[in-house]
């Protein structure tokens, strides 16, 4: 099995927090915390597996090229709406989404569409809602939060288009960065 840098970071994080916990409160809270974490893991596992499968299946149905075509060029509010929908459907962590934003950028999507896309991914990501938020934070809270955030990615896209009037916010061509 390959051990990545991130794994070491999380290992250190768990050791340090566990160590501090032991030093301050003794062994009981450490055992208690470990048991709680184990129970939580078992609780989220069935949804996590389903979420991963959804992510894998969606990559078979929606190709990167197709997404880029829908958002290319000056696309108006329709483009921002499409970018929002594409973003909220994009599964996976930042290691999937930012490469997709980069691909859209190269394909000719404008700043507003890129911002709407990444905002929708981070605020409304459907995969995260199903795998993490519903099981951990509950249906009612998740629904309220989702409804409150629904219009925000489009707003961010409009703001981004407005901000690019100033040179400091103008994106250079992808190759120049």
């Amino acid at each position, binding site marked *: 099995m390959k051990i990545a840098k991130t794994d070491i970071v999380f290992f250190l994080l768990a050791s340090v927090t566990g160590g501090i916990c032991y030093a301050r409160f003794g062994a009981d809270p450490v055992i208690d915390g470990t048991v709680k974490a184990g129970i939580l893991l078992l609780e989220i596992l069935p949804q996590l597996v389903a979420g991963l499968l959804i992510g*894998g299946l969606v990559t078979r149905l929606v190709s990167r090229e197709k997404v880029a075509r829908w958002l290319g060029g000056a696309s108006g509010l329709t483009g921002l709406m499409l970018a929002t929908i594409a973003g909220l459907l994009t599964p996976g962590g930042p290691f999937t989404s930012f490469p997709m934003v980069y691909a859209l950028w190269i394909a000719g999507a404008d700043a507003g569409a890129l911002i709407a896309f990444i905002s929708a991914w981070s605020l409304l990501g459907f995969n995260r809602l199903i795998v993490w938020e519903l099981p951990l934070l509950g249906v009612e809270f998740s629904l309220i939060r989702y409804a409150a955030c629904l219009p925000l990615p489009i707003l961010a896209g409009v703001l981004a288009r407005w901000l690019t009037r100033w040179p400091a916010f103008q994106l250079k061509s992808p190759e120049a960065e």
Partner: protein
Amino acid sequence: MNGPLIIVWVAVLILGYFVWRREGPRGLRAGAASAAGISKTLVLRLPLALLAASFLVQIVPIEPMSRLIGPTSGVIGIFIASLLGGLLPGGPMTSFPIAIVFIEGGAGIPQMVGLIGGWSVFALHRLLAYEAPIMGWRFVALRLGSCLILPLLAGLITEVIVAVTPLG
């Protein structure tokens, strides 16, 4: 079996059917392989992250902080909560367990929406690790400029939702 669990597995079946109709068993295998690839990276990280979050909530004074962002703390509470959210480390696997502790500690719903919003939008860890290296600093500046008010807005919209609907 609970509601969300049934929904996700129904979604798996529906998507699986579409993939099967388009690509046959080969597509299903490729989709599963892609899922297995991601789960391989999680197998060590996820238990450690849950463990770290579980210890973290015991040593960080979350209860006094929860009072700071209680249901009556209003706009200022939402603002503080969204800043706090931006500082939460890691992905949903670490930050959501911490969020649960805030909710149990007595934080208000609009403030919690601000907190999750701040975590979604500002995510310092993600910004440094992925966004800046891939997209460049100009993009980071543009995105932060465009998204600065979103967590606050999300919290305020939630105030309205909680006030006019039976939810909350």
